[in-house]
Each structure stands twice: as structure tokens, then as C-alpha cells.
């Protein structure tokens, strides 16, 4: 073989136009990092992002480097929606006052706030509630990796029933987390958000379409994107998209939209898979398969999914 044959091929993918650049410090196979890319692809460059503390913030902004090629601000864990409210209000004020001609028009800017499930479901709930209630023209995107990953895989109120985390460990007396995932989309819809949706990184076209659709609405809107964490969920880093897909196909992660308070466009399943197929892919559920009584917990999880599927009309 000549040396020419072994030379590495020219890279075919250029990242010049990426607004969320590679080189960030996320784990290989990080689901949320994919979400960040899809978000920026859908929102484009006329975007200002307010970001909560968490994995995606930490891995993307190690000073003096930054993965962000859009305007981006991080303040603290609990206040991304509050900060976004202020940014949006500032642009509204600039539009209505004289002497701010150098600023973009409010209508032309996409105001986006991003937080993990912890930032969204738990500590930042008040901030998000206020932002939604006041109807700020902000799209809030929760990337849902079902735990506090940045601080070392603790449970959040998005962690599924039966998952082992460092603060809900499986033990001789425990099957892991003993609460059901908080229903954030319903909470967002009840706030009067015109547009609410769930999405998955396994279905990027659907996710990006939902972002674009959300941005057409004035006022607050909420999207929750299922984004597996290979480290926290304990699966091989090559399996991220497969795990995310199984979450959808088992009904563990239903995909739907709520427009003007009405459930619409549920991604229905013709052949919903049993939840075991999903659970067995991840170390966080391993105890359910090895421990006596684990099968009953799996049954409970399945029942919960079935109830949800019934409510959503998930099965075709």
C-alpha cells in the first residue's frame, strides 16, 4: 500500500456555520449536546440565549473559550427564565423608545431560555412560572436528561420511578427513585402558553420543526426535549440515539404538542414496545432485573405508561 492510500481522508463536514461549535467538553455521546446543536440550527443566528447552570452551560463556556456563536448569557441555576424576561423586556423597551436605533427589532430576535430538568422542574420553577405567566416572548427549552448530571447524577423531579441515582440509590430497602416524573408540559400549558411540546433528540427533524413552530407564536412557549445522558443513565456512548428512540417507542417519552391548551399532533405508536426493552438498555434500571421484586416495579412503570398512553391516545 502506498503512503497515499493511508493518508486520512479530507474532512467532509465543515463546522464553520455551526452556531453551537464542536470542541465543547460534553461527554462523548451526550444527548443534551445534540439538543444544543439542533436548537441553534432551528433558531438561527438572530437569537439570544439565556442559559441555566448545568451540564450544557458548564461544558460550553469554559472561559476564555465558548461554543456559542449566538449571543448567550448564563447567570445562576434558578433564573434563566428571569434573565430571559429581562433581555426580552429590554428589546421591547428599545423598540418603543427613541434613541435605540442600533438595536435589532424585538420582533426579529428569537429569545430563548435553556435549562436542564433540574433547572426547570425544580429550582427554577418559580422563575419559569413567572416568565410564562407574564407572557414574555421567550421560548423555554428544557433538555430533559432526567437528573442533576452536572453535580454527579442526583435525582430531580423529572427522574423516572425506579431509576437509581446517587440520591435515590437502589439498596436493600429501595428500588431507586420513588416518585413519578413531574408533568411539566401540563404545568406549562396550564400557565396559558400557546405552544407546548415534547420532543426527542432521536427525532431531530420533528424537534427542529417544533422549535420553528414555537417561535411563530408571540408570548411564552415551552418545549421539553428528551436527551439521554450516557453517564447518568449508564449506557454505551454509541447508543444515545437508540436509547432515546426506545424511550419514544415504549411510550416512556410520548411526543406531542399542546396548542392553545388543546392536545394536538400526538406522535402515535402502531406497535408500542414493552418498557423492559427500554429499561434493560440502562444501568440505572439494572437493579430492577436483578433484585427480587424488581419485576413488580417494572410492572408499575408499565402501568403508569399505559395510563399515560390512554390519556394521550398514543396507540394507533
Amino acid at each position, binding site marked *: 500500500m502506498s503512503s497515499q492510500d493511508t493518508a486520512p481522508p479530507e474532512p467532509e463536514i465543515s463546522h464553520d456555520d455551526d452556531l453551537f461549535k464542536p470542541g465543547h467538553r460534553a461527554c462523548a455521546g451526550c444527548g443534551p449536546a445534540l439538543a444544543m446543536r439542533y436548537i441553534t440550527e432551528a433558531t438561527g*443566528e*438572530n*437569537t*439570544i440565549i*439565556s442559559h441555566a447552570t448545568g451540564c450544557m*452551560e*458548564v461544558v460550553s*463556556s*469554559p*472561559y*476564555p473559550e*465558548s461554543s*456559542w*456563536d*449566538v*449571543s*448567550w*448569557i*448564563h*447567570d*445562576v441555576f*434558578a*433564573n434563566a*427564565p*428571569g*434573565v*430571559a*424576561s*429581562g*433581555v*426580552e*423586556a*429590554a*428589546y*421591547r*423597551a*428599545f423598540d*418603543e*423608545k427613541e*434613541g435605540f436605533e442600533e*438595536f*435589532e427589532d424585538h420582533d426579529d*430576535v428569537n429569545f430563548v431560555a435553556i435549562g436542564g430538568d433540574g433547572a426547570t422542574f425544580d429550582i427554577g420553577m*418559580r*422563575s419559569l*412560572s*413567572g416568565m410564562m*405567566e*407574564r407572557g414574555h416572548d421567550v421560548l423555554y427549552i428544557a433538555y430533559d436528561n432526567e437528573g442533576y448530571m452536572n453535580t454527579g447524577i442526583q435525582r430531580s423531579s423529572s427522574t423516572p420511578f425506579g431509576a437509581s441515582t446517587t440520591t435515590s440509590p437502589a439498596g436493600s430497602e429501595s428500588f431507586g427513585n420513588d416518585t413519578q416524573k413531574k408533568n411539566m408540559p401540563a404545568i406549562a400549558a396550564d400557565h396559558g402558553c400557546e405552544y407546548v411540546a415534547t420532543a426527542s433528540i432521536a427525532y431531530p427533524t420533528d424537534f427542529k420543526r417544533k422549535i420553528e413552530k414555537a417561535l411563530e407564536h408571540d408570548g411564552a412557549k415551552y418545549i421539553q426535549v428528551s436527551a439521554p445522558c450516557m453517564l447518568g443513565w449508564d449506557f454505551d456512548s454509541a447508543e444515545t440515539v437508540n436509547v432515546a428512540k426506545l424511550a419514544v417507542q415504549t411510550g416512556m417519552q410520548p411526543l406531542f404538542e399542546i396548542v392553545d391548551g388543546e392536545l394536538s399532533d400526538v406522535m402515535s405508536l402502531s406497535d408500542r414496545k414493552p418498557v423492559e426493552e427500554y429499561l434493560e438498555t440502562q444501568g440505572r434500571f439494572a437493579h430492577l432485573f436483578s433484585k427480587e421484586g424488581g419485576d413488580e416495579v417494572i410492572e408499575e412503570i408499565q402501568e403508569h405508561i399505559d395510563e399515560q398512553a390512554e390519556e394521550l391516545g398514543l396507540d394507533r
Partner: protein
Amino acid sequence: MGEQTMLKGDRAVAHSVLSAQPDVVSAYPITPQTGIVEKLSEMDANGDLRGQFLKVDSEFNAASSCIGASGAGARVFSATSSQGLKLMSEPLFTASGMRLPLVLAVANRSLSGPLSIWNDHTDAFAERDGGMIQFFAEDVQEAVDNILMAYRVAEDPEISLPALANLDGYILTHVKEPVEVPTEEETAEYLPKRDPHATLDPKDPKTMGAFARPEHWTETRFAVHDALLRSKETIGDAVEEFADQFGRDYGLEWGGLLETYGPEDAEIALLGLGSIVGTMRDVADDHPASVKVVKPRVIRPYPEEALREALAGVESVGVLTKEVSPGHQGTLAAELKSALYGSGHNPAIHSSVLGLAGRDVTKGDISDIIDEIVDATTAGPSTGVISEEDWPQLKRDMLPDEVTH
């Protein structure tokens, strides 16, 4: 020059804020600050406040939205007190690190518990190390004027820091005094439009509030420290130009950082913050001993050199302070000691913690403190020994036995 009108302190402050035409006001009610927010709401309802008024869910998000708006380049305002300031504390500490100018009126009030809505300086001192400029006002006029000076300094691109304009809850917020409120035109002349050095502009993307590792964090903190130190000069300029335009002098002689009152060569000095100073002036006038009053206008930046100079000739200093750092002492006295250490001048320092949570400080209280200082001084020349901390208003008989035995 504007006309004098009788106005309640909270209303007067709101007028001052209105004259600066902030782009975003975001606030949450808490006694005794509420009147400021209510008045601004009314101004907004009547179309006089041309910015956005955010009726937020909490002080936490009042501060957060001010941070976002300031990041976008807006002039912002909020007001709070006590627990509200505590709830703002987490985001406020980041505002200095992010070098975002904010102006907050703080109607000073004690912190729970037990719950008390009345005045002291516990809330302001609890934010002492947050990298914020902290002004204190003696009367309503100064509270009004400090708002404008706070904007001047906070928004100076060389400084770019949050600023708290403190005014004593009730004592200043709920009292009617004759004040001159600046008009929008006057303020526009004094306070230029904000020229933000870093903004969230989609055309020129920036990352704000990045994650800094140990190799960079120290420098961020130093930059805040350095800006606060440099802000002394900016405050001096702001006070000087304010005097030129509005005719009111706030310690020009001391670079605008403090004011002194009484005989220059007095043997005794009284040091205090805020509204208590008015009473201190009265008592100093009446007291047979030679007493001067020293009133810091800011606690951050700390006016160390000005204090050393203002206290140069005195034998004793009575520090009257409405806060305490439990387990240590009144912070105002502790900091004064640190300012004098190494200066070669060691006046005796009598620190009195008083006026906590609205306990009235009377002329009699202050006169007694001077008498005590006189007695200690005549007992012998100052040995440079710092006297013990005293709580002159403490009613020991109300304490349970196990505390006092």
C-alpha cells in the same frame, strides 16, 4: 433649579428614578420599600415611565430580569428591603462579576428572625461583600440625589457595577420632607444615556457569564475589587458635577465619600450612617464637649483614606451602628479599626450597636454615649486601647437567665 415640594421619601425616590427614565423596572413589593414600586407603577400606568415595568413573581426574579436587561444594554431599576434583598443576593453577587450596572433603592430594614419590618442596616451589610457600590442617605433629599449619582457611577463604562442606594426604612421612606425632585431634562444633562460596553446583540455574539476555572477566576474578582477602588474617584467626579448643576454639596471636600460636621479640631468624633446622622448633628451642637460628626456616604468602596484624614486629630471615636456581625462586633467599627491600623494614629474606639430593628435612637442615647466617651478620655490619655463593644439600648433584664449569668 427645581422647586421644593413636600413629598414622602418613597414617592420622592420614585420621582428621581422617573427622571432617569430607566428602560426596564422590575420589582416586587416589600415593606417599607413598597411605596417606591407603587409610585413607579402609577407612573407607568399614566404613561410617564416609558420603559417596561415587570411585575415579577419575586425579588429573585426582579434581580434576575434586571441582570438580563442590563446585559442587553438597558438602564434598569429595582427596589427592595430586607428579606427581598436576601432573595436577590444570589443573582446580585453575579452582577458585579459580570460587570453589569444595576441601580437598586434599598429601604433598609432588619432581617428575620424574629420578623421585624423596621429599620436597621443588617440587610445592607449582609450584601457587603458582593462587589456592589453602596450609598447611604441621611435625608430624603440625599436619597433622591443618590439615585442619580448611583446611575452615574454604576453605568460609567470604566466602573460598570451594581449600586445600592440605601435609605432608612420608615425614617426616610415614610417621612414627608421638602425636596427638590430633578426633572427629566435636568437629569438628562447630568446623566448621559447609558453606553454599554458589552451587550447581548445578535449581530455581535458574545458569551456572558461564562464558567471560569481557577486559572481565571481570581482575575475576575480582582477586576471587581479594582473597579470598586477606582469608583472612589468616579464618585468624587459625580458629586462635584452634581454640586455644579444642582447646587447641593455632598462632601466635596472629602471627594464625595463622606461628610463632616462640627469643629475641625474636635477631640471626639461620632461616626454613623444614614438618618441617625441628623440626630448626631443636633446632639453634637448641644453637647458641651467638642464633638464632630463623620458621616460616610458609601461603605463600598470603603472610604479608608478619607476616614483617616477626617479623624486625624481626634482622641476618641464613637461609632454608632445599626448592625452587628454576630460573634464579632459592629462591622462599621471593625472596619474603622482596620482603616486606622498602621496609620500611626490610634484613637480609642467606642462602638455602640443600637437602633436595631426600629428601636428609636434618641438624642439622649447619643448624648449618653458622648458622656461615656468624655469620662473615659478624662480618666487618662488615650492608650490606643480599643474599648469593648457596647449595646447601650440592650435591656438585660429581658434576657433569660441562662444568657446573662
